[in-house]
C-alpha cells in the first residue's frame, strides 16, 4: 500500500484526490506531512500543491453534490482529524468512481463518517455561537478568547458579523493562535503576540469598561434567580453545558 503525503491544507487534500485519479494506485493511506513516518516497507508519494488541480476537483465535487453536502465536506476538513482527512479522500474517490448519487448511501462507512463528523463540527460551531461571552473593554472593543475542539472560526464568522454589525469585536482562537477582528465594516484575520502568562480567554479586570463588572454581576444574578431549585437536575445540566465550556461562561466564573 502506498502512502500519500500532503501538507494538511484543503488544497493539498484536493490535490491528493486529483493525483489518485491520475495514477490509480489502488488502495492508499493518507498522511499529513507532520504525521508521516517513513518506513522501509512501503512506498510514499509526495503530493505537490497545485491550485489548478485543486480547483478542478472542487468544481467536480460541486457538480456532483448539493450545497449541504459541500458544507459537510468542508466541515469534515475543518475537524483537523486524521480520520476525517481519510474519510474525505475516500468519499471523494467513491463519489467520482460511480455514476449514481452515492452520497446518500449511508451504508458506506466513509459517507457515514463524513456525515457524522460534519455533525460534530456543526455542534461545536453552534456551541461557540452560544457560549462565547464578550467582555467590553475600556477602548470600546468586545473581546472573547476561545479554544474550540475543531477549527470553527471560519464557520462562525458570518453569524457574528451579521449579528453585531454596529460594535467592534474580536474572537480569538487561543489554541490555533489566530482570530477574527470586525472593524464595523469587514472581518479581518489577525494574530496576536501574547506576552503574559495570564488567561487569554478573559480580559484583565482593569481593562474592562466602566459598566463591565456591573453587567457581569447582573448576568450572574439573573442566572441564579431563574433557576428552580426544586427541579435540580445536575446530570441534564452537564449534558447541555459540558464542564470543558464552563471557563467561557460568565455565569460560571464563581464556581470555577
Amino acid at each position, binding site marked *: 500500500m502506498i502512502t500519500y503525503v500532503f501538507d494538511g491544507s484543503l488544497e493539498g487534500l484536493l490535490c491528493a484526490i486529483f493525483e489518485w485519479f491520475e495514477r490509480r494506485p489502488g488502495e492508499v493511506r493518507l498522511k499529513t506531512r507532520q504525521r508521516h513516518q517513513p518506513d522501509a516497507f512501503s512506498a510514499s508519494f509526495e503530493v505537490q500543491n497545485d491550485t489548478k488541480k485543486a480547483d478542478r476537483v472542487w468544481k467536480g465535487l460541486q457538480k456532483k453534490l448539493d450545497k449541504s453536502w459541500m458544507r459537510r465536506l468542508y466541515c469534515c476538513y475543518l475537524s483537523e482529524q486524521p480520520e476525517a482527512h481519510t474519510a474525505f479522500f475516500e468519499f471523494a474517490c467513491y463519489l467520482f468512481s460511480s455514476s449514481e448519487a452515492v452520497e446518500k*448511501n449511508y451504508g458506506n462507512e466513509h459517507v457515514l463518517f463524513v456525515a457524522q463528523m460534519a455533525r460534530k463540527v456543526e455542534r461545536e460551531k453552534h456551541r461557540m455561537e452560544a457560549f462565547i461571552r464578550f467582555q467590553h473593554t475600556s477602548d470600546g472593543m468586545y473581546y472573547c478568547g476561545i479554544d474550540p475542539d475543531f477549527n470553527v472560526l471560519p464557520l462562525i464568522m458570518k453569524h457574528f458579523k451579521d449579528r453585531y454589525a454596529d460594535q467592534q469585536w474580536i474572537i480569538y482562537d487561543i489554541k490555533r493562535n489566530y482570530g477574527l477582528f470586525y472593524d464595523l465594516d469587514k472581518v479581518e484575520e489577525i494574530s496576536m503576540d501574547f506576552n503574559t502568562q495570564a488567561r487569554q480567554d478573559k480580559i484583565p479586570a482593569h481593562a474592562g469598561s466602566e459598566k463591565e463588572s456591573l453587567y457581569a454581576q447582573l448576568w450572574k444574578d439573573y442566572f441564579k434567580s431563574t433557576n428552580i431549585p426544586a427541579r435540580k437536575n445536575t446530570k441534564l445540566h452537564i449534558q447541555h453545558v459540558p464542564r470543558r465550556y464552563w471557563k467561557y461562561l460568565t455565569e460560571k466564573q464563581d464556581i470555577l
Partner: protein
Amino acid sequence: MSERIREKLNILADAAKYDVSCSSSGGTRKNDNKGVGNSHASGICHTYTEDGRCVSLLKILLTNHCIFDCAYCVSRKSNDIERAAFTVEEVVSLTMNFYRRNFIEGLFLSSGIFKNADFTMERLLRVVKKLRLEERFNGYIHLKTIPGASDELIKEAGLYADRMSINLEMPTESGLKLLAPDKSHEEVKRPLGFVQNQIVQFKEERKLIRSVPKFVPAGQSTQMVIGATPESDKDIMHTANEYYQNFSLKRVYYSGYIPISNDSRMPVLGTQPPLIRENRLYQTDWLMRFYGFHVNELLNDLNPNLDIDIDPKLSWALRNLQYFPLDINVASYRMILRVPGIGVGSAQRIVAARKFGKLRIDQIKKIGVAYNRAKHFIKCADSPYQLKEYQSTQIKSFIMAESQSKYVQAANQQMLLF
C-alpha cells in the same frame, strides 16, 4: 442605583421563571439596518440553569404587582412577597447590554396586571417599540398578550414582537375555575384567535405587496400547568391537540406544578414536581407533531394516562404488535418512524441508504438506531429467523431489563419475601 437594579432583577426574574417557554426559534428578522441583532432560525440556547432548562431569552416581568388572585401563581395579590417594577429604560438597557455580550437571544417580556389590561399592554408595547425603533434591535422578542387588552394595542405589538403567547394555565375549564375564578379559557381563545387571524391576513397581503411588515413571524404558543388539578393525561393532550389545530400554535408547553402555597385545593408544599409525567407529555407532544401520530392512538378512553416506566412510543408499539416486526428494507417511511428506537434522522437515512442495497444489522447500528430497543420490532437483511413470537409483556421486560431509566435513582426492586 446598581444595587436597586440588582434587587429588581432578582425579584422580577424569579417571578418570571415559572413560565417555561424558552424557545428563540422561528425568528426571521435580518440585520439590514446596520443595527444589532440577527435572528438565528433555529434559535440558540446560551446557557442552561442547574435544573437543566435552557436560557435563551432574558425572561422577566415588567412588574409583579397584580390585581388577580390566582392560586397557582407566586405573584397573586394575596401573596405576601416583595413587589417591584422596572421602568421602560431599565428593561431596554438590560436587554441591549446582555445581548451585546452574547448572553441572550433576546427578550421575553411578561407582566403582572396592574390597573387594567390595556394599561399593562401599553407599557409592554412601549418597551418593544423603544427596542426596535430607537435601539435598532433585531434580536428575538417574545411578548405576552394580555387577555382583555384592546385589539389595536395587540395588533401594534404584533408588528414588533417575534412571538406572542397567552397561557391557558389549566388544561380544563373546570380546573381553571377552581383555582382562578376570575379567568376563563374563552378569554384566552379570543386574543389567540385574533392574533392568528392577523398572522394569516398579513401573510396573504405580503404575497401581493412585498413591503407589508411581518406580523408575529415566529407564531404563538401557550402553556399549561400540570399536576395542580386532577386532570388525566388524555384531557391534557386532547386540549393541546385542539389548540394546535384551531390556533396553529407553534408550541404548547407543559409545566409541572411546583408547590408554592398552602392552598388546600392544590398539592401541599414540599411535594415533588411531576417531572417524569411532564417528560412523558412532551414526548407525546413530539410524537404528535413530528412522528405522524394522532392523539387518539396514544391516549384514549382505554388508556387515559401515559405509562410512567416506558415512553409513549414504546407503549404504543407494545399495544399494537400486529404491525411488527417490520422489514426496514421495504417498509414505508411512515411506519419506520413508528418503531421505538428509530428517530427522524435515522429513519431518513435508512430510506435513503436502502436504495443502494439491503441494510444489515451492523449498518443499522452505525446509522444511529438504538438497536437494543428496535431489534424487537424490526427485521434487517441478516436478522436471524425467529420462530417464537413474544408477548408484549415479555418484550417490555426485555427492554426494561437492559435499560436503566434516568429517573430511577437506585435499584428499587422489591425484595422477595421468601
